[in-house]
């Protein structure tokens, strides 16, 4: 039996959030945390709300705070998080809670959109694809794989305090994904939108982002590259 403590909040019936304990029979298996949530919802309380989709760590739906650390429930085995037979699941920190484990990600997505996360190239494209050397393509590795799960940004104190002004690790990782793309020609314009004291420079190298990223990506490093580009750009 696993003791599972869930953060519950229903806007229609709760004044304030509360923790609710469940005892879940895992049959001694090293399930994923998402499997445990599915057990709670199917057997104990169908009103528990959480997001899930691919259940294999690529869609980014089920970012949660499990025993104090952000991660994807579907690829986090119990053996990795459970301490003393107990599992505490809370919603991602710092964003408003809609209900139970579901947070309002509007601010997170807004910061993503702010970096204009799409290729910009005004030149007429060729008949076939634009050519890119394998070396140039390699620069996108570690950047394009982001699944927008928000584990990083919601573990970042700078994002907690200024989610409307600091772009946050996820948005900045995507910002650099386009700055680093040999096919993108909007580098100057992109950089000029990042020069203010908040967008990039709220990053203090805390590295919570890199410590929680379920895809093993490193926003801190990408932000370092952006800072370097901003420096050489301002000279």
């Amino acid at each position: 039996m696993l003791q599972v403590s869930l953060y519950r909040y229903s806007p229609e019936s709760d004044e304030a959030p509360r923790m609710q304990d469940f005892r879940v029979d895992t049959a001694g298996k090293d399930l994923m945390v998402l499997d445990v949530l599915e057990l709670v919802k199917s057997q104990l309380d169908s009103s528990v709300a959480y997001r899930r989709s691919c259940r294999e760590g690529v869609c980014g739906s089920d970012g949660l705070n499990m025993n104090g650390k952000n991660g994807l429930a579907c690829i986090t085995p119990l053996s990795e998080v459970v301490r003393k037979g107990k599992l505490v699941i809370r919603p991602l920190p710092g964003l408003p809670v809609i209900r139970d484990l579901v947070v309002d990600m509007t601010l997170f997505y807004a910061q993503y959109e702010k970096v204009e996360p799409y290729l910009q190239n005004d030149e007429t494209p060729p008949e076939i694809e634009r050519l890119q050397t394998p070396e140039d393509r390699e620069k996108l590795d570690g950047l394009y794989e982001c699944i927008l799960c928000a584990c990083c940004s919601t573990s970042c104190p700078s994002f907690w305090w200024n989610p409307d002004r600091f772009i946050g690790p996820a948005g900045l990782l995507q910002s650099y994904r386009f700055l680093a793309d040999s096919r993108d020609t909007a580098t100057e314009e992109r950089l000029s939108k990042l020069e203010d004291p908040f967008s990039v420079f709220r990053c203090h190298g805390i590295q919570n982002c890199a410590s929680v990223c379920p895809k093993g990506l490193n926003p801190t490093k990408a932000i370092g590259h952006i800072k370097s580009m901003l420096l050489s750009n301002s000279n």
Partner: protein
Amino acid sequence: MNVTSFSRSGVSDWILQRASSVIMLAYSLAVASVVIPGTNYEVWSAFMTQVWMRSFSTLALIAMIAHAWIGLWGVLTDYVTVRMLGSLGDRLRFCLLFFMVALLILYLVWGIFIIWGL
């Protein structure tokens, strides 16, 4: 919010923060190199009143002012905001920032008096 930042630009603030820290680091080492082995009034006073050391002290003082301003501005715009404290946030932050700037100017004037023995 940017209006009260030191240089109003993230890039320049960032460079200033780094440059000032290097100056203060060097200055701290210089002072430590005299203080640590043990010193007396004559040696200490002779060291500190050389023109280059007086200039260095002044530079370090200014670096400290800039460094503290940028650092504190960051702290205040993190915690003392409308988001964190409600509508009071902005006014309280301006008050605190004003107080900090006044204190830093006081440090500056005081420091210059000390350094140049006025």
